[in-house]
């Protein structure tokens, strides 16, 4: 007696009709939660470092210093002597604030030192020297 081949005639398609709905749902979620920075700062070329660590973005307040020694806080060019009063106000608003130095690698250290003195005066002591990540053994 010949064997009868039994084949499963059920459809095996994966339903994709709800794919667009899921995509839009996720899209709305990411659009709502994404945070874009609105600070343009100054054009700087950051130094490279291997021992870099990640700063907590929400706590960070940026200070840009370009290679000519120009200082920018919140897109306003300020003098080094203005750093202390500005940062004093900011530290009151956010006591856990981390000041990120976005400084050009060719900037004379004098400018950075003056800003750091202002930060000490304002008691904004947590700083992050922003760097580009250097990959060990990789030549740029």
């Amino acid at each position, binding site marked *: 007696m010949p064997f009868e081949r039994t084949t499963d005639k059920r459809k095996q398609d994966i339903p994709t009709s709800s*794919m*667009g709905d899921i*995509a*839009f749902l*996720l*899209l709305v979620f*990411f*659009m709502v939660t*994404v*945070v*874009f920075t609105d600070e343009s700062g100054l054009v700087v070329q950051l*130094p490279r*470092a*291997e*021992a*870099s*660590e*990640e*700063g*907590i*973005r929400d706590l*960070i307040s940026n200070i840009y*210093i370009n290679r000519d020694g120009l200082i920018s806080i919140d897109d306003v060019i300020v003098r080094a002597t203005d750093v202390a009063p500005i940062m004093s106000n900011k530290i009151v608003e956010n006591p856990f604030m*981390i000041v*990120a*130095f976005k*400084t*050009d*690698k*060719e*900037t*004379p*250290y*004098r*400018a*950075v*030192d003056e800003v*750091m003195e202002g*930060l*000490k*005066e304002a*008691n*904004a*002591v*947590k*700083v*992050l*020297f*922003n*760097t*580009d*990540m*250097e990959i060990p053994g990789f030549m740029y």
Partner: protein
Amino acid sequence: MASTSDVAFLLLVFFIVMPMKTDEIGISLVLPGKSNVNDTAKVNLKNVATIRVLPSNGILFDEQPVRLSDLVRLIQDRLTSNDKTVVILETHPDANYGMMVACLDEVKLSGARKFSLKTTKI
């Protein structure tokens, strides 16, 4: 209408990838401020290793000229011989900030936990 989900996925990828572009990486430090001024301690000169960044961006380690690539080994040797070693990174105001960060990077890589920044008085 068929391409709507394609567009949605494209936008989705954009909004997922955008926040990942982190530029908040760097070397963190706590400066001596008004509140932690009492934390300052006197250190025996024998326990101090000084790195000096010159205006020419040359480097001195305990007054001896060294290459940047040798700094990690030199600091580690000092730490091995004396675990109380405090590294002082003294930078001249005319030196480049990039060189100061490069030295600070080497100090961090060497595993030195006690270090401080100083500016050369002129």
